[in-house]
């Protein structure tokens, strides 16, 4: 899959940090404003997909992006399991809120909601990127002659 023209490449390279920062903002403020882990993870995956569209597929095949996405997916799942087991050790049931609740409206408040959202955000990002990579790498390098 070839890349696009010079204008598209420049604009997408300028826009990528802002969209990434916006996705991180929506993940981290999940307990104060609407959003949470799931829409924030999709926004970050969409920004990476925009870069793949602009620069073509040959630049992605050289470094092993597939392995990195699989490792990130597993790290997100293990974070959620670790927070749940911490609730089991210090409290009485799985996923109990044992961190101190702060005051209303601050960023570090609400117990273990913040860390749970970070885990789910990493997991959703890696999952959607893995689906995209599996669909693209399997049909790479074949001619389009299926009788169009």
């Amino acid at each position, binding site marked *: 899959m070839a890349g696009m023209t010079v204008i598209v490449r420049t604009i997408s390279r300028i826009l990528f940090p802002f969209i990434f920062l916006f996705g991180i903002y929506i993940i981290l403020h999940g307990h104060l404003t*609407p959003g*949470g882990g*799931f829409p924030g993870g999709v926004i970050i995956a969409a920004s990476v997909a925009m870069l793949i569209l602009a620069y073509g597929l040959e630049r992605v095949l050289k470094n092993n992006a597939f392995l990195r996405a699989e490792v990130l997916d597993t790290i997100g799942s293990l974070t959620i399991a670790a927070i749940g087991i911490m609730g089991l050790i210090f409290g009485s049931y799985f996923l109990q809120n044992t961190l101190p609740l702060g005051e*209303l409206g601050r960023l570090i408040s609400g117990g273990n909601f913040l860390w749970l959202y970070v885990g789910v955000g990493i997991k959703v990002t890696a999952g959607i990127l893995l*689906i995209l990579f599996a*669909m693209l790498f399997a049909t790479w390098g074949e001619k389009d002659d299926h*009788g169009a």
Partner: protein
Amino acid sequence: MIMGLNYIVAMLLIAAGIYCLLFKRNLLKLVIGLAVMTDGIHLFLISMGYRLGGIVPIFSSEVAPSLSEFAARAVDPLPQALVLTSIVINICVTALALSLCIYAYRHYGTLDTTKIRRLKE
């Protein structure tokens, strides 16, 4: 404005999804019909928990002066939480269905459901 317009539109979306599932023969169009039907169901679930003259269930000091008044004016938060889960599951089902369509096209050479039934290899 007709009260209850949300319900009528949700039922029309479900009926459109059923029409697409019955009448189309292409495999990709069946997946589109499933997605439209799921959207209608989500709209129906969310509009069941509406309060007339209600506010968003997110507390801040400019919207409601005290906690008891916030609880007396806010919209139902429970169907919104359940639909959030359902949207993510809908993504997974659509991704698996589309990849199975690609696999069937590689194996049979066609996407017509009346022809797939007869080719057995």
